């Protein structure tokens, strides 16, 4: 273990010293006046950020200073200013992700403390939200369990994936391997437009058409079922699966496909034996991202579900739809305050962490695929 960490710290040290060297070079090579302007810009923007975070009315001052120094820099030392501004913009992108993490976690802390549970003598904060299924914000004991919503999200996501994965991969195969060019020119924008239809419109149609129909067909009490929310959400996740999987499939080199076809295999055999296995990681990343979309889908679930945070009975009863992690936030943010609002943030944290993990996982899979196929792309 020791040599590994050694080399690692060595590497980090070298990286840092390289960075320092580069910064020094930059400082040495740059006109002192430009350097001064650039530093003023950086400092004032940092000041504005601090002020904004501290909810200060004076934030405007450093911000104006930043604008003024940028303006001066732009006219006098455009080269350096452009570099520094674009660097700041990059940093701010990461900063936003960081701020999201900090703020939604911070808001959820009180309720995590409140919902502590003791297991084997250890007090685990937040555990009680996951070991009992009761959500009650009104009558004591006040409990904010995440179990019903997790159950709902899992049900919806499973059904949605069952819809989106096969249909999406098949449509991606169609677009990338089968469709003649004129057909592709129609179907591809069609899939994109499908992605563009607002989720609330899907939800509205589901609410006015599907839900009453489903309640009628399955003779359920009241409206709202995981089955149909899942199907609608699956259709909404479909375009994500199609476009990512299509990218993966068309990144397989034509020479590989020709090699198979020249042996006298059918197009379908080439697809299933060469193209799909070679693009397997990319296609599974597509399915993963589709799952991520399905998990995060909010409005269709909110308007189509019942809004009762409890489990269905039995658990596999897909004909009843209660609440998902997303819909409970959208439905309850209005009247919620205090602990209940914080509980909504816990739902947000679960969503955020899950989807982020899925996204990072999908990227890792894709990255490995590109590495494996090497320079052939």
């Amino acid at each position, binding site marked *: 273990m020791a040599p590994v960490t050694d080399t690692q710290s060595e590497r980090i040290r070298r990286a840092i010293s390289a960075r320092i060297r580069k910064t020094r070079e930059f400082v040495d090579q740059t006109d002192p006046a430009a350097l001064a302007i650039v530093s003023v810009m950086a400092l004032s923007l940092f000041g504005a950020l601090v002020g904004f975070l501290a909810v200060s009315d004076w934030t405007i001052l450093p911000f104006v200073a930043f604008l003024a120094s940028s303006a001066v820099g732009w006219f006098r030392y455009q080269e350096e200013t452009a570099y520094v501004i674009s660097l700041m913009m990059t940093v701010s992108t990461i900063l936003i992700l960081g701020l999201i993490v900090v703020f939604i976690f911070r808001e959820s802390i009180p309720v995590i403390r409140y919902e502590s549970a003791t297991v084997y003598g250890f007090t685990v904060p937040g555990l009680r939200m996951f070991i009992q299924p009761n959500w009650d914000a009104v009558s004591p004991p006040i409990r904010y369990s995440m179990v019903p919503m997790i159950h709902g999200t899992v049900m919806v996501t499973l059904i949605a994936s069952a819809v989106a994965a096969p249909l999406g991969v098949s449509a991606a195969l169609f677009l990338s391997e*089968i469709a003649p060019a004129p057909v592709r020119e129609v179907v591809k924008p069609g899939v994109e437009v499908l992605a563009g*239809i607002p989720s609330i419109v899907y939800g509205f149609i589901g609410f006015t058409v599907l839900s009453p129909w489903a309640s009628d067909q399955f003779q359920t009490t009241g409206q709202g079922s995981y089955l149909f929310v899942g199907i609608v959400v699956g259709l909404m996740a479909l375009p994500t699966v199609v476009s990512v999987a299509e990218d993966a499939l068309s990144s397989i080199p034509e020479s590989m496909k020709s090699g198979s076809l020249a042996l006298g295999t059918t197009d379908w055999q080439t697809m299933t034996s060469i193209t799909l296995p070679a693009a397997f990681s990319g296609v599974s990343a597509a399915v993963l991202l589709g799952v991520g979309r399905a998990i995060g889908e909010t409005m269709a679930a909110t308007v189509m579900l019942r809004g009762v945070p409890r489990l269905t009975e039995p658990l596999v009863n897909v004909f009843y739809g209660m609440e998902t992690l997303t819909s409970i936030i959208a439905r309850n*943010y209005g009247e919620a305050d205090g602990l209940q609002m914080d509980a909504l943030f816990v739902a947000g944290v679960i969503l955020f962490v899950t989807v982020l993990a899925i996204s990072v996982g999908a990227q890792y899979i894709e990255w490995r695929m590109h590495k494996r196929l090497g320079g052939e792309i």
Partner: protein
Amino acid sequence: MAGATQTGGELIEEETTETDAVAAGAVGLSAVLFALAVAALFERISLTGAIAGVRTVTLLGGLLTALGVAVVAFGVGSRFGYVRTDPDPSAGLVAGFGAAVPWVVIGGGVVSETLGLGPTIGVIGAVVAGGTAFAVTVLPREDVGSTLPLGSLLALIGLVFLTGVIGPEWVWELDWAQQASITAGFLVPTATLFSALYGGWASAKAYGGFGARGRHMGAYVLVYLNALSIIAFLFVLVAYVVVQGVPGLLNGAEFGFGTGPQTTILGVSVTLPVSVPFVMNGVALFNDFQGVLPAIVGTIWLVIGAVLLAVPLGVGAAVFLTEYAERGRFTQVVEVATNGLWSTPSIVFGLFGFAFLIPRFGNGKSLLSGMITLGFMLLPLVVITSREAMLSVPDEYRDASAALGVSKWQTIRSVVLPAALPGVVTGVILGVGRIAGETAPILLTMAGGTFVPGSQTVDVLGSFQFTSAPPFVANPALLEATSALPYQLYALISAGVGASSNVGDADAFRWATALILLIIVLSFYAIGIATRYYFRRRLRHT
């Protein structure tokens, strides 16, 4: 030599034979059944009614039986050499599992419910039925394996419908704590739908003469059907919203000179030749016709604000990542972060805006918070598409420019950015289409009441004012809660019919709102896709 054994392939195939025609007919019959099943599912045809004088269920049953018999006959005929085919030794595992699934369902259902033996024995029944179907598919030669289990499945379902064992009144009550039942209205069309898919698959395989070409045909039929269904679904969806929304949209609309409201264009007062109250009015007690003007204006401002924030930020970040930064750890981290941001659920952005922005902008929901939240949502997309566009600018351009002694930033500004512009513009337009329809983030950050009077239509440009206290600039319009179309639609849905009675026909009002929203979002998409085609064609011709 194994490779030397020629497996009966002929270089030139004969003309279409009668048997091909039978298989093609079976494929066609499956298509008809599929269409009937979809129509029945959407209640376009009634199960209790009749088509051409035959009861619907009987008709479906008859067609299914015929299809099943045709499929089985083809397979058996091929086995005994009456039909010339080129089958493999086995239909394969995939076909085996495909055939086992419906038989598991049927076996389980019949044993546990029809025979009333309970779930435990039901599982055994399911396993036996599925296992048999699997074995019959996998073990015999392909022509029998891929037709017999599926054909008999179709025939069985067909006979059940024909004999009235499952008629239009059939109901199976699930014995669950929360009551639910499976009715004929759901079961008959669904079973027909899946049977048609299986029938089409099997007969397409038969049409291709089994073997590699048969499987190719079978798979292509399903893949084409899937693509067609997606496009049909899109078309039906849009058409439905249009049909439902147009009456509400045109409620009280007038066309002709002098009918519209007065407006000032370039200093000249003009009377518009159209009057569409739905998009020109707000909601007020004494309005003849109610409208959603404030929501439309709110949406427009929202989009403008988000674009103003996200586009410079995103393009700048993309410039840094592609042009300045060396590819390495840092760019990788940013890439992972932007992709992560891109897949972050919109409601999480809403929560973030609620926790981060609202306390900093006047402690209440405001247009400004909504703009920034949506800007954050748009940002990763702008970064990703701009980066892609810049990466696709060939390095030769940069080298050529650098070789002329042009500085880095000048190269970026005069070579890279213009070349990447088409990609960036297209990406931004498509992204805008997406955020214009987002509801969840603005729900928590900006949206106010359900119905907004026309007098409260936001006027951002007219509201700037200077104050003596910091922050010295104020714009009440930006700091007020307002409405946007997607939120308006949500509010109308969740408010229920009673609360929205003051807009007259609430249902028409809602559908019209949905239609306006769809029109706005889809026109962004249309513009985006058209831009892409325009640039692509220009690229091809120069």
